[in-house]
């Protein structure tokens, strides 16, 4: 291929590998190319610099929150100077990560993120697409997976006293333990506070109903009444609780651990599931429309587990099992015949 502009270099995957120093074959190839094409040097250097700058800036943004909090820590007992700090702080970070707890937070609010729309331009506003989950690393070490259509707004004062965020939709939280800074998730009139925990939460479309399943640790749930927050419940492990407009409480219900884990692992499991139901779930999961030509086929049942599979491989396996064929009529429509 002829490369005659910076853009053309930037559009080449192996060239980027070379700039980022990640693939031996590509590095060798491009080193050679550079030697043999001195006339392209201007484009190459520009492209290379942009790749590096971009890489470094992304890295800087990733490191910055940690660096800022490290600096703040260093300021406190000021008699210790410069160097020793780093090692103390590094040790603290390791302990911190080892103390990670799991929080599962689930809100069934596929209706949308309208409640958070006003935050959409905010720097710490995250939103998952209609067809994809989104993973976010928070700078306190916590990790969040937003389910499809979910949105999360991190309060700008996050970490100062409390770790505050507002969620709409379904999300999974793996919370870094930090007793000094409670982890609080606001959903409509409810706030759920993690006290070192694993739990699941579901709220209705209008955010007036809420269900909490606690996996481990402890959570508290509070509800807004005017300006006051009243404590609704403190949950212990393996407990589940629901709140509605009229405060129906179902305590100590067992929740489906498997269901929760499925969601976390992004798995789809079918057990003796009628084909129709399988197709419906696949439609939701992959955001496609699936039709069956043979109406009798809907009565077949299907067993199987799909994990991180492409839609095509799922369809292959499914059709093989029920002895059918499928074809894509376009990218979002499938016919089974």
């Amino acid at each position, binding site marked *: 291929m002829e490369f005659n502009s*910076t*853009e053309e270099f*930037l*559009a080449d*995957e192996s060239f*980027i*590998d070379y700039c*980022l120093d*990640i693939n031996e074959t590509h590095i060798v190839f491009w080193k050679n190319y550079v030697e043999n094409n001195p006339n392209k040097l201007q484009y190459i*250097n*520009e492209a*290379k*610099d*942009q*790749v*590096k*700058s*971009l*890489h*470094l*800036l*992304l*890295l*800087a*943004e*990733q*490191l*910055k929150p940690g*660096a*800022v909090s*490290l*600096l*703040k820590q*260093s*300021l406190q007992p000021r008699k210790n*100077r*410069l*160097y020793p*700090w*780093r090692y103390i702080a590094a040790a603290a970070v390791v302990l911190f990560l080892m103390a990670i707890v799991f929080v599962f937070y689930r809100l069934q609010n596929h209706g949308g993120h309208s409640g958070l729309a006003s935050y959409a331009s905010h*720097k710490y506003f*995250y*939103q998952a*697409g209609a*067809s*994809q989950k*989104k993973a976010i690393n928070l700078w306190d070490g916590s990790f969040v997976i937003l389910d499809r259509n979910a949105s999360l707004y991190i309060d700008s004062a996050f970490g100062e006293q409390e770790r505050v965020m507002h969620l709409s939709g379904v999300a999974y939280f793996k919370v870094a333990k930090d007793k000094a800074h409670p982890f609080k998730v606001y959903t409509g009139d409810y706030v759920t506070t993690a006290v070192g925990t694993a739990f699941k939460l579901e709220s209705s479309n209008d955010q007036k109903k809420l269900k909490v399943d606690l996996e481990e640790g402890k959570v508290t749930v509070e509800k807004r009444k005017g300006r006051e927050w009243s404590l609704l419940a403190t949950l212990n492990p393996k407990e589940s609780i629901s709140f509605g407009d009229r405060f129906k409480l179902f305590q100590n219900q067992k929740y489906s651990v498997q269901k929760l884990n499925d969601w976390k692992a992004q798995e789809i499991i079918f057990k003796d599931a009628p084909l129709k139901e399988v197709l419906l779930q696949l439609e939701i999961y*992959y955001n496609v429309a699936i039709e069956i030509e043979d109406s009798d086929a809907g009565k077949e049942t299907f067993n199987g587990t799909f994990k*991180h599979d*492409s*839609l095509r491989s799922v369809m292959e396996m499914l059709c093989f099992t029920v002895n059918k064929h499928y074809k894509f009529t376009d990218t979002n429509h499938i016919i089974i015949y």
Partner: protein
Amino acid sequence: MNQDSTEAERWISFCDGDEGALVSLYERYYSMFFVWGCKWLAGEEDFVKDQLHDFFLYIWESRDKLSRDINVKAYLLTSFRRRLLYQWKKHQRLTSIEQMGETFENNEAELLDAEAISEQFLRLEKALTLLSPAQREVVELRFLQSKSLQEIADMKKTSLRTVYNLLHRGISKLRSEINEKNFLWLW
């Protein structure tokens, strides 16, 4: 210009011992200094990261002796670079006595154009905020986490074409933003 005056005020608070001013200067310059530090010391990200931390604590410790009327950006950038290179030589002396000296002598003489450096950096930083979330995600996976296009497509359960397009549009957007004003890349 307002920016500059608040910057000067922040510097004076810093010299007066306001920790908040230190933190805000650090937040403000962290990314820029990191990016440039890593360009000066190619491949030494960890060293630069540590030096950045130490540098800010170092100027904090010596704040009493610092001039209060300065161009903050130029002053900090120049001092940071000087200290970074000095520490690097010291570090090199510990690791290998042989190859010190030469590498940076030439660079030292070079004039540091703080305005140009900061303008270049700010353009890129701003450009990055203009990416759509999907573009930003793909750009991060590709340029920060070094994933291949195929790996990204597999992760996101989407086609190679989609990933390629997202990335391509992202890069084009960054470039059009950066090159808006016939901009000279310094490298």
